[in-house]
């Protein structure tokens, strides 16, 4: 097991003198891309900082602990499972953490900026704080755990696309903002707090569980399953009550199908409300 620690330097994260803080884009710092690299090689990996391409070593303090991964190319990818990347420092302007990652583990200690875990295919990301918008966007596989709150468009599609998350598992410890799981087609989302407006908007497949309250969940959904254990505010009138069932937790749930606004034929979504 190898642990790569990347601490964002204060002069990069600090908004000194009221200057707008320029975001760092960390999609080149995934375990699969760093596997097999030495400390010196990691420091040389290119990272976008605003519109400039910089070296990782110039933006982060880099330290590597444990055995180095071996081999290159295919072999390195295989050893990515043995790599853990730990981000530290003020990460609130670090975007695309774990974007496109295939394997291994990422731990982000603090609040992270947008697109964390976007296009993720495998491995695990743990955010020990809040994640800004678009976390898990178009995620295909792997596991994303956000201990705090998630911003809007959690696991949604990119603007204009018609497919959001297709696989993997996401857990949000706190609340999720609006449009969680928009155009979701597969995978699972568990929101332990409340969901903002329109969770599961245009949902086609997969499963969303909301332990708190939700507002207008499942609008325009044509497939998939949403379970709300708290209150539903402004439930879409275009959902039809089918039956009352007992859920896995032993609680009583009302089962609705919808969204009938998408025509009777397409309304294959299921909404359970406790």
């Amino acid at each position, binding site marked *: 097991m190898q642990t790569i620690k990347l601490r964002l330097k204060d002069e990069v994260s600090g908004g000194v003198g009221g200057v707008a803080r320029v975001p760092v884009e960390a999609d080149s710092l995934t375990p699969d891309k760093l596997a097999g690299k030495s400390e010196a090689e990691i420091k040389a990996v290119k990272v976008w900082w605003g*519109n400039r391409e910089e070296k990782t070593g110039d933006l982060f303090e880099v330290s590597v602990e444990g055995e180095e991964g071996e081999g290159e190319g295919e072999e390195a990818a295989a050893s990515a499972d043995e790599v853990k990347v730990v981000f530290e420092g003020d990460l609130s302007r670090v975007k695309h953490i774990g974007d496109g990652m295939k394997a291994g583990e990422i731990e982000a200690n603090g609040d992270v900026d947008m697109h964390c875990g976007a296009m993720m295919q495998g491995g695990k990301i743990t955010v020990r704080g809040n994640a800004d918008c678009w976390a898990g966007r178009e995620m295909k596989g792997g596991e994303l755990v956000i201990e705090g709150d998630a911003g809007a468009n959690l696991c949604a599609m*990119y*603007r*204009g*696309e018609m497919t959001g998350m297709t696989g993997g598992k996401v857990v949000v410890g706190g609340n999720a903002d609006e449009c969680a799981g928009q155009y979701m087609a597969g995978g699972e989302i568990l929101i332990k707090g409340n969901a903002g407006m329109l969770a599961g908007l245009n949902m086609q497949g997969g499963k969303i569980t909301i332990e708190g309250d939700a507002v207008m969940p499942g609008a325009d959904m044509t497939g998939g399953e949403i379970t709300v254990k708290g209150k539903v505010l402004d439930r879409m009138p275009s959902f039809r009550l089918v039956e009352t069932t007992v859920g896995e937790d032993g609680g009583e749930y009302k089962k609705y199908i919808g969204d009938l606004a998408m025509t009777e034929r397409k309304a294959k979504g299921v909404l359970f409300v406790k």
Partner: protein
Amino acid sequence: MAEGGVSKMAEGELLIKNGVVFDPINGVKGEKKEICIRDGKVVAELKSPNVKVIDAEGRVVMPGGVDIHSHIAGGKVNSGRLFRPEDGRKGVAVRTKVCRVQSGYSVPNTFATGYRYAKMGYTFVMEAAMPPLAARHTHEELVDIPILDNAALPLIDNNWMTMDYVKTGDTDLLAAYVAWIMKATKGFGVKIVNPGGTEAWGWGKNCGLTDAVPTFDVTPAEIIKGLAEANERFEMPHSIHVHTNMLGHPGNFEVTKATYDLVKGVKTAKDRQVIHTTHTQFHSYGGTNWGDFVSKADAISDYINQNEHATIDIGSVILGDTTTMTADGPMEYSLHQLTGRKWTNHDVELETGSGITPFLYSGKVSVHTIQWAIGQELALLVKDPWKVALTTDHPNAGPFIGYPILISMLMSKKRRDEAAEEMHSAIFKRAALPSIDREYDLNEIAIITRGMTAKALGLHEHGKGHLGVGADADVAIYDISPEERDAGKIQKAFLNTKYTIKGGEVVVKDGEVVATPAGKTYFVTPECDEGLTEEMLVKLKDKFEHYYSVNFNNYPVQDAYVPNPYEIKASWSG
């Protein structure tokens, strides 16, 4: 402004030696010959002994490509970009020392448009639909497109002035209006898109060729004939450029043929076609509905083969996702109804309109497969390549970046057969493509991508589409030998040139853009009798006073919007 600032011809001398040249306008069919370039023009011989030399080493050399019909600038192209962020994310490339940031696939940004065309060896592109009211915007975008020389065709057919004059039969006054529009918009020629149909769309309707346009009491047939005659009042370099009625409707091939017949007797002011019909693939449909839909490319090709007054471009389909956009508003609405995908619509007061919707051409869908076949059938069944141009009606049937695929298909029966095997079986029952053996050679490819297009646009008289002495030094050097038969290698070579030379300057080398000079904008100034113009202006000013939301004096595009002008005067021919 495109990087590089003002357009200028590269100074100095350049020699391209050992290339195998295909220059169909000058009858050069794959001869090893030198091309001498001085100050941006092709010359007979060079003076200086120490000129810069490009050794083409037996590679294929052609004049710069000339695209006769593409949507690259203006209101609806930009709306397409805005409304398809998911297309924008494809083809993203960061800024380099030479190139600005690129994005998009079917609706690339202005920079990517210039770079990608140049990499394919194209140096001139015609923007095929400019709403006169949006001419300023169109020119602003043309200026922003690097490298390419360009021009734009103003839409004049669904225009209230035009329909009024067609109704009263005042062809001379209509000609005066056409002349005024060309000057006011810095336009190149007369564009006709679903004549009458787009105006009818304002009332929720569409028009067949002989249906009366609501409230105007004229028919599309009368509009087409009237504009064809008005166009020939001047020595216009280009004929009328027509998107015929009922685009995309099964059975519309009869409408297309009837449209050709309408203008058969019209006498031209120059030695060229009377009518150019564009994206003819969309207009060569048989059957009565999508269930019995068949290719009628054979019927259209027969007509073109038997008549001399009409030319076509194919508007061939590239499989995959694209963005359809046209001034044919009702057609876009029908398409949106068919797919359920997002749609936007726009009305241009008194003049035209437009619609946009994304579309996915799939080789697994019978209708798309037949459409895919029709475009190529047209190119293969029209015997004389001087009557047919290679286009995809970018981006309607597919993005221009698909041209190299089409070239490889036309050149290889084997490639077509392999592709057909992977597609819906309808291609074997309801299209002719699998039974066609013809293969294009490089000379014919040069004709349909530069020679024919330059001639049909009248640009061969202005140094485009050929490499004769005095021509613009726009040259494409493709990294294949003239004997190459491998379709994959042909496609690759036509996607990224070894060299593209524009106005004597190397702009692409080894498939990379190395310089981005600004292109020139070509426009036509018809010279109209002052008395006629005065009489026409009385009516036009009345239209502005009562109906337009802009002032007459604020309407014409100022010279400042065309910083690199190339004016072509068209004298009155009566």
